[in-house]
């Protein structure tokens, strides 16, 4: 019941909502999170963001976490799409969708899934700054803490 994708191309939010809800009327609420590339970090302008991942591990790990969410909350389906490659400021990075009969389950599962993607899924971001300098993004302790709330 989960759809997992790692892709370099953009995703279509409406199409993903439609795919998750098509032909069914048992959904009461859909939670969604979309992460996008910001044009600055720590006060410096960013011109690009490059995402690398560990292909053999990524989709299997994403499928497992989607399954864990479906066991933890009453979900009728979820969608996880993560982009890789070179992205520009304003571009979409990640989409999480969770459908449930109940609002709170949809929202909680959405928060759980994006926290997990931030802290456990094997993706790495490199930022390119205005002067051409490139730096790998350091892991955020606040993100690690957000994930541990779900432990």
């Amino acid at each position, binding site marked *: 019941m989960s759809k997992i994708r790692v892709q370099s191309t953009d995703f279509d939010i409406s199409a993903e909502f439609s795919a998750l809800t098509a032909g069914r009327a048992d959904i009461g609420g859909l939670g969604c999170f979309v992460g996008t590339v910001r044009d600055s970090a720590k006060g410096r302008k960013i011109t690009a963001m490059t995402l690398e*991942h*560990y292909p*053999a591990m990524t989709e299997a790990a994403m499928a497992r976490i989607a399954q864990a969410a479906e066991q933890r909350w009453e979900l009728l389906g979820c969608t996880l799409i993560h982009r890789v490659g070179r992205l520009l400021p304003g571009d979409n990075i990640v989409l999480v969708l969770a459908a449930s009969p109940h609002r709170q389950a949809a929202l909680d599962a959405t928060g759980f899934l*994006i926290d997990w993607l931030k802290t456990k*899924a*094997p993706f*790495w971001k*490199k930022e390119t700054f205005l002067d051409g300098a490139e730096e790998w993004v350091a892991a955020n302790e606040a993100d690690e803490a957000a994930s541990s709330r779900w432990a």
Partner: protein
Amino acid sequence: MRQVKLLYFAWLRERVGVSEEDLMLPAEIGSIGALVPWLRARSPGHAAAFVATASLRCAVNQDFATPETPIAAGDEIAFFPPVTGG
């Protein structure tokens, strides 16, 4: 001696200088904890990549591993910094 595949990601890959390598491990390298110092001695690039073990993460056969995780012939062993997806 056991053959394993090593994978490196993000700045670990850049410092080691290759994204993957097939290595023959001596019999005494039985765990991830024993593998790291052995890798560090392979080249200046490896030494630079494995300098800060606090910011090192490892997966064996695509599952997160710890220093205690044992190594078997044919394993795929990946080293990378803390993840920053999402």
